[in-house]
């Protein structure tokens, strides 16, 4: 097996690493880059815990081979907050009480961020649809939806 050279931008930083090709983007982000906000839940695309933003779109990193992500821009939860300020979505999740065990939270926030970056003013139905690929076993979703609405309104300065 020949190693491959992975060049990509992760959370704004260019990276260049050699790796075996029989690994998923999920493994590479967690194990090689230490980005442990990216969670492995189901490993089959159903829970959304491994969601990252790749070239602006929310995708499940358990269903991408690391070689397929060469040349892309990847954003994980670690890339959202500034020096001493949280992203509006992170702050809204705290304020709305949308985090319980927290396992689903990174994926939820990134799915919501991909939505808000594409559509500044989504309605409740669009918000629900945007997180329909993310499972949460704790909150019952209601508070998560409220948090995203709150972040939407704050981003629009409402």
């Amino acid at each position, binding site marked *: 097996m020949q190693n491959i050279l992975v060049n990509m931008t992760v959370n704004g930083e260019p990276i260049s690493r050699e790796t075996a*090709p*029989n690994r998923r983007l999920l493994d590479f982000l967690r194990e090689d880059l230490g980005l442990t906000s990216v969670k492995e839940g189901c490993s*089959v695309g159903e829970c959304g815990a491994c969601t990252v933003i790749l070239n602006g779109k929310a*995708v*499940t990193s358990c269903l991408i081979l690391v070689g*397929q992500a060469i040349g892309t821009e990847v954003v994980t939860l670690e890339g959202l907050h500034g020096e001493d300020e949280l992203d509006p979505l992170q702050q809204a999740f705290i304020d709305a009480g949308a985090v319980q065990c927290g396992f689903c939270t990174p994926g939820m926030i990134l799915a919501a961020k991909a939505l808000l970056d594409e559509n500044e003013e989504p309605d409740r139905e669009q918000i629900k*649809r945007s997180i329909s690929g993310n499972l949460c076993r704790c909150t019952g979703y209601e508070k998560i939806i409220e948090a995203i609405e709150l972040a939407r309104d704050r981003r629009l300065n409402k």
Partner: protein
Amino acid sequence: MRAFNFFSPETVEEALDLLSQHQDSIAVIAGGTDLIIDLNEGGKKPDYVLDISQLKELDYISESDGMLHIGANTTFATLEKNELISEYYPAIAKMADYMGSPQIRELGTVGGNVVSASVAGDSPTVFLAYDATVVLQSKRGTREMSIEEFNVNRGKFRCQIEDDELLIEVKIPQANSNFATAYRKFGKRKSLAIVVLATAMRIERDRDNRIKDARVTLGAVSLHPMRSPKIEKALIGKKLDMEELEPVLQLYTEEIDAAIASRPSVVYKREGIRGLAKGCMMDVLEQYGLV
């Protein structure tokens, strides 16, 4: 995941060279939403993996020569957002809307769906109703066949693709104002819902708003989606009016009974299909402006 060498060709030509060279043990990967699960769980053990997801050449939706052409690398998210599709190909739009979750729609491609040809897949049922043709290419040349001929198991595939071939595109006759198309499915839940039961139809009307031609397909009741000549025949000549169409629903139930008589789920599906079929009929009447 077992070890393999990874190729990311920059052109279709390069991809076909590699496929031809390593055809005994190579797997094509597009969106990866079917293949990576197989690789990860050991269901497939190729020595080489060929990534075609970067091939922009295979990512297009266009109308020409009286056909709609959908490149193999078109994702379900692209289908969902495409104006040509949402305006003129309602059954394809519906399929894209129903398929997977947002994340899966971003990754999953039409080519992958058609080649996987899963019993629980959406596109085979829809494309069969649209009378689709698939275009395949290898170093040996290009060939075309109807989706009906394509959906026959061959070797390790659930379709007629050969080891050294790529699916290039799916094409269907271009829409016109006499066509109406519809698709409805049951899945386990709204998102991530692979098909449990599905039906699609393409109706062509005459000047008097009678059904001139019909293609009706049923999905997830046999190895591959099937057409129902019985239902199609019953529809032809009928006035486009719910009262006239409704008696045909009984034939849907009869088709389900015949297809899956011995399966426990038949008791649900023989009833459920009527709801799906009626939904399709309503969609068709609405597209014609007849409701």
